[in-house]
């Protein structure tokens, strides 16, 4: 199991790095799916098989598909890839990258400084999760439901192709 964890972790890291370095959106998304799957494996090794399933279904499935749909709607061409190349110059990314790596180093230092403790062997059953969710966290579940509802309504509202801009100050932007 340990080996699985490390392998999956390595895959996840490499895939994620590839996601952020791709110029083509579709390629990046494919690597993203790989990354999510690797993380699902990590979940599995950590004794959360139900979460691993969720990860694949929702992240690698639903969310990525959503993004791909949008990309298809936007009709991206080779030009956009070229844009991407122009935008991603070393002079642009070197500063933020260094700062972020410093942040990572600090995080790593914090993790390492605490005493070592192994993750326990037992998996946490989906049932226990369900009991917790609908027990003490019922309020959170309801709020999540509302959030999703709001997300759907919001997405619908925003996603409409409005012929007429309602706000009078913005009328000039719309023909």
């Amino acid at each position, binding site marked *: 199991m340990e080996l699985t964890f490390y392998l999956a972790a390595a895959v996840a890291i490499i895939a994620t790095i590839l996601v952020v370095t791709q110029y083509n959106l579709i390629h990046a998304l494919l690597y993203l799916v790989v990354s999510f799957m690797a993380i699902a494996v990590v979940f599995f090794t950590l004794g*959360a098989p139900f979460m691993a399933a969720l990860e694949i279904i929702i992240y690698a499935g639903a969310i990525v598909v959503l993004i791909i749909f949008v990309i298809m709607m936007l009709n991206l061409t080779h030009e956009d890839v070229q844009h991407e190349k122009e935008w991603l110059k070393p002079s642009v*990314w070197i500063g933020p990258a260094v700062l972020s790596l410093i942040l990572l180093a600090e995080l790593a230092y914090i993790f390492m400084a605490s005493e070592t403790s192994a993750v326990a062997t037992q998996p946490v059953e989906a049932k226990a999760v369900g009991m917790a969710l609908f027990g003490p966290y019922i309020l959170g579940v309801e709020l*999540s439901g509302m959030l999703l509802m709001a997300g759907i309504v919001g997405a619908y509202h925003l996603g409409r192709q409005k012929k007429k801009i309602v706000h009078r100050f913005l009328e000039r932007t719309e023909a």
Partner: protein
Amino acid sequence: MNTIPMEQGLLLAGILFIIGLISVLIRRNIIFMLISVEIMLNAAGLAFIVAGARWIQPEGQVMFIFIITMAAAEVSVGLALILQLYHNLKTLDSDAANVMNG
């Protein structure tokens, strides 16, 4: 059965988070930024799972479910916004949307 140290799990979460962060910072394409935010959210979820596994408690997974829910909602709204942005500005460049500068 296994002895994966918690630090290693957290380190993985940290590395993934930082990669996502770097991507948010350097990308101008707004869809890439959205993807990067997903990576960061996922990394945060991973950290919860690791912690839940360490203490053998369900709360870590509960939190992950909440995060996943939020991510789904965020993506849907975010994508709708991207569509509107693209519709108005004819570009995916986030810097072009700086009409609210001070």
